[in-house]
């Protein structure tokens, strides 16, 4: 069972707003989803058969051509020279 306080905490961590949500419905859905996920706790614990782990392949760390700043910034909501611009209260562009 998920409480509203827990839901608020999780939503804040996930950067989601609960404003405008049907809180009762969402709580019910989240409680059902968590109860569903909780089935993993009932799985029998098996003795481990650890095999050798496959190593991660690596590639040489060499500088290569990359995207230009204009391409990288093409979808930015706002930019300032070659930087992404994040706007919000108290955040201003340095003159």
């Amino acid at each position, binding site marked *: 069972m*998920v409480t509203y306080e827990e839901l608020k905490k999780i939503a804040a961590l996930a950067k989601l707003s609960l404003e405008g949500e049907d809180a009762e419905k969402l709580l019910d859905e989240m409680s059902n989803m968590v109860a569903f996920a909780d089935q993993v706790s009932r799985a029998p614990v098996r003795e481990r058969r650890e095999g050798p782990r496959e190593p991660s392949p690596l590639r040489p760390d060499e500088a290569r051509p990359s995207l230009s700043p204009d391409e990288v910034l093409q979808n930015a909501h706002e930019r300032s020279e070659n930087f992404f611009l994040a706007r*919000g209260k108290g955040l201003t562009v340095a003159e």
Partner: protein
Amino acid sequence: MIRIADVTRLLSEKKLSCRELTEKYLAEAKKTNDAINAYITLTDEEALRAATKVDAKIARGEKLSPIEGVPFVLKDNISTRGIRTTCASRMLEHYEPVYDAEVWRALRDKGAVMLGKGNMDEFAMGSTCEHSYFGGAKNPHDLNRVAGGSSGGSAAAVAGGIAVYGIGSDTGGSIREPAAFCGIVGLKPTYGAVSRRGLIAFASSLDQIGPLASCTEDAALVFDAICGKDPMDMTSRGAEPVSDRLTPDVRGLKLGIAPEFFENLSDGVREAVERAIETYRALGAEIVDVSFPTLPYSLPAYYILACAEASSNLGRYDGIRYGHCAESFADLDDMICKTRTEGFGAEVRRRILLGTYVLSAGYFDAYYKSAQRLRRDVTADFEDVFTKCDALVTPTAPMTALRAKQHASPVEAYHTDICTVPVNIAGVPAVSLPCGADGDGMPVGLQLIGRRFDERTILSLSLAFERATEGRYLVSAGMGVTEL
């Protein structure tokens, strides 16, 4: 349904130019899309440009490669430089990638003709294709039913005759399940066989790109065109091409049947799958009993892993670098929260919340760590199974295509994926092929699961079934381009 080999023959014999073919498909796509909503974006200009190049090659007397000049649909979570890639989300409604996905690059360089970007569940999260910001894709066999998800647009376009083949992605069944619902062939390759570079991430340890096609040979040809090692995707290993190595002779192959996969099936699915098993027996395959004890726990383990990875992967959508941005806000934190709440649909928000929950302090061990332990157990179950047989035979889904809005709750909807998720958890390959129809005439999917990097065996088995049943289950929905 039109096959790749039909198109290649007509183009090579100059009975039809690639431009004429492409214009025909685009015209049909515009008409048929009103009914089935398979495409989010049609890419006429790109398609005709590619077709013109193919015609020039034919005029020079050069031989066409297997997929050259063949019109296809690309799922809209695969990046196409300069062509909007929405992921079926308001968040990316106007997003134009600045680089190409490796799969799109490989197809384009081989002369493939992209007709458009396929509809899907938002961020590939869903089993019905109903969670699309652009409205759901409909099933060409019955417009009151869903196409399946999440690659529902690609499946509906192929079954609806407005693409010869499709490219989808499969995180928990998103190629195989819509293929089953729409009566076509869908291959989820081994994890690492196909590059994921440029695939917009949902759950990176589970996502894999693969083909949807009207027959096994087409699925194999497309797999050959897209498989390969990519130095820009550190999880890619590449794979050997398979289309030249398929054989319909299955004598002596051992096929495993695990009873866990046969619980809670609809009557139509059970009957069709059991008949298919008898077909394999008659063809000389040996049917062996195996068990898969972790199946009941695979589904919750999958949803924990997938949602945890999604909550992390989707953290990048903050309204600053790309994507939707809220209009009014009090401060930076408020801007990010409003952007994400407005930009993501309800199912995506639910999965992010569940993922954040299972990763949060106090719950990490109970949920995420347990799911990771189960991941090893599921993989071990496959290893045990494949000491006794060459492929595992299961239904693709417990039911045929659902009616629109049939699921009562999110958790009920997750149960559609019970037969497909273990495949992604273990990273093994699986193909879904049509093996019959239920009492309402809706297609039933048969799933063949193989050893890692053994696409050849499962596609050979799929081909053997098609030949033995004379392709009678590869049924056209009677719309779109039905003849050339």
